[in-house]
């Protein structure tokens, strides 16, 4: 069974948190880290989030 991970790219907090583009970069870094431990079957990028499909 495939495991699914989502990563939100929302603008974040009211004050001081990451912008959407910063969040996108953080999401890409997270995906790179996932690749070290997991087999990624598919990545979908939606306007407000990534959906990552991992092999079990």
């Amino acid at each position, binding site marked *: 069974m495939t495991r699914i*991970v989502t*990563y939100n790219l929302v603008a*974040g*907090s*009211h004050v001081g948190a*990451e912008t959407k583009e910063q969040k996108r970069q953080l999401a890409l870094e997270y995906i790179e880290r996932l690749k070290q431990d997991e087999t990624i079957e598919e990545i979908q990028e939606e306007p407000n989030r990534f959906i990552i499909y991992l092999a079990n």
Partner: protein
Amino acid sequence: MAAKPTTFGSFHNGIALSKKIAGGFHSLKSCDIHSQAGAATGSFAFEKTSGTIVDNLPDSSVTLPSGDSFFATSSSGKIWKVTTSGVTSLVHTNTQGVNFGLGYFMGYLYYASATKLGRIAESNASSEATWSSQTDSWATFTNTNVHPIKMEEQNASLFIPNRNYVAAVNSAGVFEAASLDLQSQHSITTCIPAGTGLLIGTWVGNYHNQAGLFLWDTYSPSYIVDSYIDEAGVNAFIRGEMIFIQAGLVGNIYYWSGEKAVLYKRLRDGDTVIVTGINPSGAANLNGLPLFTTRQGIYSLGRGDASLPVAQNIEYVYSATNTITPGAIQVVGGQIFTGWKNFDGVTTTYGIDKLSNNKSYAIITTCQAKGVIKSVKVFYDSIPAGTSISARVNKDNSGFVTHDLVQDDGDERCFRSVVDVMSKSSAQFEITLVSSGSNSPIIDAIVVQ
């Protein structure tokens, strides 16, 4: 001139603001003040139920619907199972390192290490004497956890603090690595359902007293309300008739107004400053009575009826009695399990306690009675066979010394002073209700005159 009699009898008022304030007590330990309003008796005593199996502080815990509880430690990867009767066993050692939190959601027990979320099916968590079907790295966190955290279910998702992010597992079993982000200085310690939202508490640091409270609806891109307390951090949320917030380093209790934290009480034990720190799993609720673990013991912060004041009381003390580091607490039906670490000056020991059938020695310290104090009388309602009442007196602030009492079982039904105290300006009494097995004296009033 002899002082007028002072009666200390409203035990349900709990521990007072100080020994100078009438209406409460300077200290209450192992004292049941809620079962019968106006009376006091010994609470049930804790006994160690974990033998030698537990070898680090159990500082996170969860109970499954089956009644099996699981405790984990942020000092190693070990996870222990505790059955409803208290039988404790080591079921797993997390290959991803130390455990920072446990949670239960939709048939799975979840456990968080620094960088991974593990899980095991509920039925296997209970049935496997040594786990074999778990997945220690079921999901990967965005940030690295560094302190104990509290997971909570709300709106059909399990929310998991991950430094300044909130991760989640939703009802479809999808792991959401970044459901919410806070400003990077925050490290989320705990969360709790608040209405239809989730209240999030953070730790910022011992030298930056701006602990954050964030109310989030769990759906929107950002939180609805943010509020700050001038404390180092939020240590725990305590479920009660309102949401209590234990914050900072000196035992302060706030409550959540819906938009901000309002200072409510400071935990007190005589003149001792109550040292507190991050302990998100150190809170529970027993039959409507909020409980919180501290070095002194388990505080209760509640009342037996809406007509009574919310009282603080050291309801239970640990089976170990030296320098305690408090851990997680779980209420399972009418039973309580709680983890601790104890340092006796030479050796450090660890354990999980459960309530026994025996009563503790209750220790009640009155506030200060002013004037020339001659004697004390402790009026009892019941003095079962083998039990008794003893006292110490602190005369004119010179320190507590033994003060002999004699039982007057005639009309007065009290224990009274054998010899006069004869203070010059003040006296305080420490009364011990000496239990025997499952019995403890029940007292109505302490009269000082």
